[in-house]
């Protein structure tokens, strides 16, 4: 090929490339750059699935109303698969490839511990929906003003249980809560629950026994139920996983164990647990239940919108938490008039947000971090297939059914 022809071809390529670049630039000028939220939840689990769906619901609502600051809103969700390494990789990808403005998400404390170093590296405004373990709070550490935590820490939850049961025992004189038996799965979650219960309810009689959760290859609870039956407690609690829920009820019935209060404390319940007759009058802890819509207009609005969009009832409190994580940042962005980190942090610190979980929340320091949102769990009870709130009394949707019967 002659030198002249080569030069001509090179010039032609240069002109075409510059033309393309110019055309691309012209095309981009007309469209506003989207405000991006990066979410990480375990999508194979019902908690993560519903939290991500609820977060997308807010994004759709914002876009239907013209976006945020006149810009479209985008949510990019990555599945953590309940794996700390995948959860950390998701944060890296959201920060570097997707270039999101805000981080939202979270369900498991173990996954969050893996993500915290990456979150600290980017210091973007983060609104976390999960991780109850105070070890995660310690890992975040003091002075991280960009970090906002919605879910109560384990000690917040424990304190609210003590307060709740004291209130219930005071209001309903027939309810006795002096003798406790805790059946706990033998892993870190169950053991920590037992230790915390012993500390929190130190002035009461407490005994406990470990069992191997179905999630870890177990599933036979007869021995622990027999021990509990011999102890004859006022309150029986089991701290395991969703896979234990129905089998433990069936086996308790089979060994004829009917304590006056039967409490289940798994992180998430199977979606069809309420359909079983064995669920009746089982007490549980949670931040929200669909029944709260009876006493909260904000909760009702959220639930109606969720059901209209997805054709299912949100079954876990992670759905309204996911919704809250996006909407609360959106409100702060509107108030700040900017997505700049400092401006959004300032707006979030001053916010009073009426949440679909019932309460109006604001952020204040907890034991370690500066911005803690919710502090209380609620005490609920399965009644006629639904989770009814029995405490706090301000949100109560039903009287407690007592004693637990079959």
């Amino acid at each position, binding site marked *: 090929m002659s030198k002249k022809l080569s030069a001509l071809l090179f010039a032609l390529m240069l002109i075409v490339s510059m033309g393309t670049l110019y055309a691309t630039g012209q095309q981009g000028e007309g469209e506003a750059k989207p405000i991006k939220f990066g979410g990480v939840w375990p999508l194979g*689990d019902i908690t993560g699935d519903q939290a991500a769906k609820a977060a997308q619901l807010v994004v759709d609502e914002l876009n239907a109303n013209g976006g945020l600051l006149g810009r479209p809103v985008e949510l990019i969700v990555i599945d953590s698969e309940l794996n700390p390494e995948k959860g950390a990789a998701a944060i890296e990808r959201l920060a570097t490839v997707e270039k999101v403005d805000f981080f939202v998400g979270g369900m498991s404390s173990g996954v969050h511990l893996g993500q915290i170093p990456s979150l600290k590296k980017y210091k973007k405004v983060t609104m976390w929906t999960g991780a109850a373990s105070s070890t995660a709070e310690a890992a975040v550490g003091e002075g991280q003003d960009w970090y906002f935590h919605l879910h109560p820490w384990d000690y917040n939850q424990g304190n609210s249980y003590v307060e709740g049961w004291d209130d219930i025992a005071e209001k309903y004189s027939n309810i006795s809560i002096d003798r406790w038996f805790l059946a706990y799965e033998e892993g870190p979650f169950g053991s920590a629950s037992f230790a915390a219960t012993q500390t929190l309810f130190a002035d009461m009689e407490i005994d406990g026994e470990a069992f191997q959760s179905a999630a870890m290859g177990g599933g036979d609870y007869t021995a622990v139920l027999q*021990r509990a039956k011999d102890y004859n407690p006022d309150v029986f609690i089991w701290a395991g996983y969703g896979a234990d829920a129905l089998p433990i009820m*069936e086996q308790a019935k*089979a060994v004829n164990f009917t304590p006056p209060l039967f409490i289940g404390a798994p992180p998430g319940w*199977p979606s069809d647990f309420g359909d079983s007759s064995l669920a009746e009058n089982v007490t549980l802890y949670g931040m929200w239940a669909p029944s709260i819509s009876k006493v909260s207009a904000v909760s009702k609005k959220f639930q109606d919108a969720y059901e209209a969009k997805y054709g299912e009832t949100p079954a876990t409190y992670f759905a309204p938490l996911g919704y809250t994580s996006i909407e609360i940042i959106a409100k702060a962005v509107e108030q700040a008039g900017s997505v700049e980190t400092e401006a959004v942090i300032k707006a979030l610190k001053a916010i009073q947000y009426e949440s679909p979980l019932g309460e109006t929340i604001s952020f204040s320091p907890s034991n370690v971090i500066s911005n803690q949102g919710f502090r209380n769990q609620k005490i609920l009870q399965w009644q006629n297939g639904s989770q009814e709130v029995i405490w706090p009394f301000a949100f109560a949707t039903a009287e407690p059914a007592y004693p637990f019967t079959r």
Partner: protein
Amino acid sequence: MNKKKIYTIAGISAALVLSVILLIIKPTILVYGIQRAGIYAAIALPMALVLGIVHIVNLAHGEMMMVAAYLSYFICTTFGLDPLVAAIPTGIIMFFLGLIVFKTSIAHTLEAPELNQLILTFGVAMVLSQTVNLIATSQPRKISLDYVSASATIGEVSFGIYDFIFPALAAVFLAVLIYFLKKTRIGKAASAVGQNPRGARIVGINVDLTYTIIFSLASMIIGVFGSFFITKFSIFPAVGGTFTMKSFALVAMAGIGNLPMVIGASLVLGLAESLVMSVPHGAGWTPMIFFGLIIIVILSRSFRSKQ
């Protein structure tokens, strides 16, 4: 009397003596132990069959049970069948699934080193659990049935009566397998293949077909057990792994090819676990008891064979 019979009688006698002691000390331990042993035996028997005749350690054994449980769950929820009825279609479907798995993968590694077979079946296990995870998610599922909580009270002792279905199921599996191996033409051929595949081939037995039938039959038994499994346990994609390990340990303890001894080994382990769990704060020791007993039995067998 040969040594195998002596060990079988010794094992059953030990289990009986332990049972009588437990009946006197605390009857619930005996009840729960027998129920527990039934579950172990029912799931270990098909693995013992495959290991004894095809000589394959199937690390996808528990995962095949998990797939069967999901199949049964979806049959029950779609057609409104009881899991005990759904055991029939589930067993049939699992027969053909076993056939496909065997013909497409395991059949090609029968002459390969054992490590290759282990890696292959481990891969099959991963494929099965991840496929179910993608389709059904990790959300635990369980069919709630009234009869599962049926209770009986004798004196001051209350216990569930439904769980006795597992020892009964194990006994049925054993009886059917013994009848099949001793009385049917295919079964006799399978026994011959298990003892000496080369000799069996020389006398005209179709060894490849025998392997295929035995693996598919074991898959069918797993299918039936999967339907019973969902009556008692929640199911999720990772539920099978533990049962693979426990089944293999029981088969090793019973001795390869000794189907009746699988029942004896399950009984000893079930009762021992139940005894440990009855001790306050003893539940955490059950895996130690399980594997401790297996180590003792295998080591003692090893010493005996050296002598």
